């Protein structure tokens, strides 16, 4: 939307923003019939789910940490702003606080998709949201302590599909080997089949490109690069050398219909930009104009 502005190393095209091409790329991964579990405080996937439900995947159940909505938009405005439970005031839910029993359904494969944002990921899609180590590699006295893995490991282990994303493609996120192996990646591998696990992460959408796993080796492979981004930029911001196909496709741009839905109906305030720290204040100001306070 802001022509020529530079965010996260990517020059934005005139007609759409980085968050918009990320949202449409995430939405592309949703199939009609998916039962999507989505945790709190993940604005881009929340918007992507509603976009998919308004376009190609109408028959999709959206299952948040606190409620289930098989049909009506879940109102991520409520989920993100006044506190999670505000969703009860504003959204049409068919279930509320479906916590403990959910994990039984995860075990049986009834939940098909979740979007997750890892703090650290390596070339085999191993993820770490726990700790960064100092030289002594002591879990009980780490150099940096993240809040914790929550259900990230459960989803990456057990759900049919997981789609990862990060709005900050940089070497400290994409590392050769994770400090702490919170959850083993190895998507589509024999190891997963032998242990009756899900497919694992099948896509990673960043502000620069999209990665997918190589089906033979599970290694991270460039699937497409966003318009206006060079291969060199991707490689400079990745802490290992990903597999590179001979002909690298360009990520499809958002369609006019998608952009119109996002800007006018689904997310007029622009919550999709909340995950870019440099845009956070702008979103908050736009929200405040409409009487929504953080």
């Amino acid at each position: 939307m802001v022509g020529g502005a530079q965010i996260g190393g990517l020059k934005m095209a005139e007609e759409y923003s980085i968050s918009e091409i990320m949202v449409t790329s995430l939405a592309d991964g949703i199939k009609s019939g998916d039962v999507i579990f989505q945790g709190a405080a993940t604005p881009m996937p929340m918007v992507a789910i509603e976009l998919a439900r308004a376009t190609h995947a109408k028959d999709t159940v959206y299952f948040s940490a606190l409620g289930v909505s098989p049909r009506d938009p879940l109102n991520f405005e409520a989920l993100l702003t006044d506190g999670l439970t505000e969703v009860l005031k504003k959204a049409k839910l068919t279930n509320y606080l479906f916590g403990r029993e959910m994990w039984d359904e995860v075990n049986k494969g009834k939940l098909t998709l979740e979007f997750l944002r890892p703090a650290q990921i390596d070339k085999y899609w191993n993820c770490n949201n726990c700790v960064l180590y100092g030289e002594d590699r002591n879990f009980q006295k780490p150099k940096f302590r993240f809040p914790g893995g929550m259900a990230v490991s459960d989803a990456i282990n057990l759900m049919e599909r997981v789609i990862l994303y990060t709005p900050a493609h940089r070497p400290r996120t994409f590392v050769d080997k994770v400090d702490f192996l919170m959850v083993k990646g190895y998507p589509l591998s024999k190891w997963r089949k032998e242990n009756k696990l899900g497919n694992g992460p099948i896509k990673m959408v960043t502000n620069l490109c999209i990665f997918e796993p190589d089906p033979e080796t599970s290694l991270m492979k460039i699937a497409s690069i966003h318009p206006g981004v060079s291969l060199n930029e991707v490689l400079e911001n990745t802490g290992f050398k990903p597999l590179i196909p001979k002909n690298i496709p360009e990520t499809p741009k958002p369609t006019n219909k998608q952009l119109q839905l996002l800007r006018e109906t689904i997310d007029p305030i622009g919550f999709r930009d909340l995950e870019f720290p440099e845009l956070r204040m702008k979103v908050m100001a736009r929200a405040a104009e409409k009487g929504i306070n953080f």
Partner: protein
Amino acid sequence: MAQDKAISIEDAVGLIKDGDNVAFGGVLMNFKPIALMWEIIKQEKKDLTVTILTGNFGLDAMIGMGCVKALNTIYVGFENLGFAPNFQQRVQEGSLYMNEFTEMQWFWAMRASEMGLPFLPCRSGLGSELVEVNPYLSEFDFNGEKLIAVKAIEPDVTIIHSMVGDHSGTIQLERAKTYMEDTVARSVRKGGKVIVSVEKLVETDYIYKNPGNTILNSFEVDAVVEIPYGSHPGSVAPLYFNDMASQMNLSDVLKKEARLQRFFEKKIFAIKDRTEYLEKFNLKLGPWWEERK
């Protein structure tokens, strides 16, 4: 007449001993027994192992005020309001021990205890280094299939917040259900104590009207404490919702040890009873509280 389990907040928290493993119900800022956490801080409990699905302001304050030695948890932070500073600092300096679980593993550890079993098996955590750093987890083989055994967490004391309770200890929820508060309460070790704070203490005649609302039976509960707005500044949805102004103030207060001490001395310990607390934070007891007797 059945034993009267309705006791004061001071006596309820008095059931906790230094060094106990104490489990708390609630998820994120919903149904957290915050008032009981503040009383734990007031009574200067020490060396607690806290078992909690997700820790927020209440837990970070308990850590900052020196009550906590170890954690069984999956997350400690303030969601959109950022990292939990006391948790982060103490783990990084090696003075707070962290048993990290995946969400399923945490539920399994509590459900195993609730069921009176030594462990429950799951696939979550296969291939992870969590098994190496969390003594509750181990890998085992079942007919050639690899599984993770999650050992039961058996807390000495379990604490939840709910809506309604009577003097005999029957506990109910209305227009809501538990995320896992009943599991947390029931996970208590044999001989341990179950403490429940409720928005409103009622006569058993009120319980008779909707027995289907019951989440805990009287024989499963040791102490009931009436604390209106017992989860404030969190929520008891759909009865009341988050007080974001107070939460943002807390997230700021928690960053500096001196400010945290002052906040508790001036804003919490100085308050003489719940009526004064409700006045200070401008919380109104509407028809919901008045109609239940």
